[in-house]
């Protein structure tokens, strides 16, 4: 009974934790804006959310790029992004390419990262408001007023 009540919050909770993961990733990119050889990283939010909530979209064919995985035959094999092959349920990280050529091989585009950071901040707050709204709805249903 109780988990039926909070079931509707699970989706937003997953979205919120993915948003905070992405926020941390973008913060790392901004922090390494001056590090030679650093490659900026990010993940596709909608793919990650779909993977985390176990919802496959109907139109996606089996050969879509986001579903292609490297075959691993041993527990010690590493996945595409350097994580151990067994650690599923985490977003696939992508590498950013250079927006402008530079000599130190750093691919952080500060304008892009700042924009992504602001965008992610707003969406995080939006998710928080969705949760707060659901809680308020539940509360008013419980108190009957």
């Amino acid at each position, binding site marked *: 009974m109780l988990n039926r009540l909070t079931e509707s919050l699970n989706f937003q909770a997953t979205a919120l934790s993915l948003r905070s993961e992405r926020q941390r990733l973008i913060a*790392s990119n901004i922090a390494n804006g001056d590090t030679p050889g650093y490659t900026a990283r990010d993940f596709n939010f909608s793919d990650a959310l779909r993977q985390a909530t176990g919802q496959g979209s109907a139109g996606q064919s089996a050969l879509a790029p986001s579903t292609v995985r490297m075959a691993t035959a041993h527990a010690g094999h590493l996945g595409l992004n350097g994580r151990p092959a067994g650690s599923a349920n985490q977003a696939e990280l992508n590498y950013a390419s250079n927006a402008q050529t530079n000599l130190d091989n750093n691919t952080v585009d500060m304008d892009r990262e700042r924009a992504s950071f602001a965008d992610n901040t707003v969406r995080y707050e939006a998710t928080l408001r969705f949760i707060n709204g659901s809680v308020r709805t539940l509360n008013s249903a419980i108190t009957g007023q």
Partner: protein
Amino acid sequence: MSMFKIFNVSGSAVSAQTQRLNIVASNLANADSVAGPDRQPYKARQVVFSTTPMGDMGTAGVSVSQITEDNSPGRRLHDPKHPQADAEGYVTYSNVNTVEEMVNMISASRSYQNNVEVMNTAKTLLMKTLQMGQGG
């Protein structure tokens, strides 16, 4: 809670940029130093940043891996009356390029500001997360 790591990441970046600013300040302060009695003028220094992994999933901070010295020869000026002039009457100054150092300073201060803003935003978000479900 993965967002607390942002303070570690941005904090490491801020402290690395502070070290860079420190080096710039010491270079600028010694821009007009002349060679001492050992004939060794001040050499311009530069910090080298490197990425430090902090936990899982691409979380990466910054650290200063080394401080390099610029070994190019310093400016030499002919000034026989200078007390530090050598036998040929030349005075050796440090090899600091003031324009380069000013550019370095502006870049370091911008990066510092960026990281402070990231920390402020993360703090605001965490405060709002703490108030989750309180009807706010």
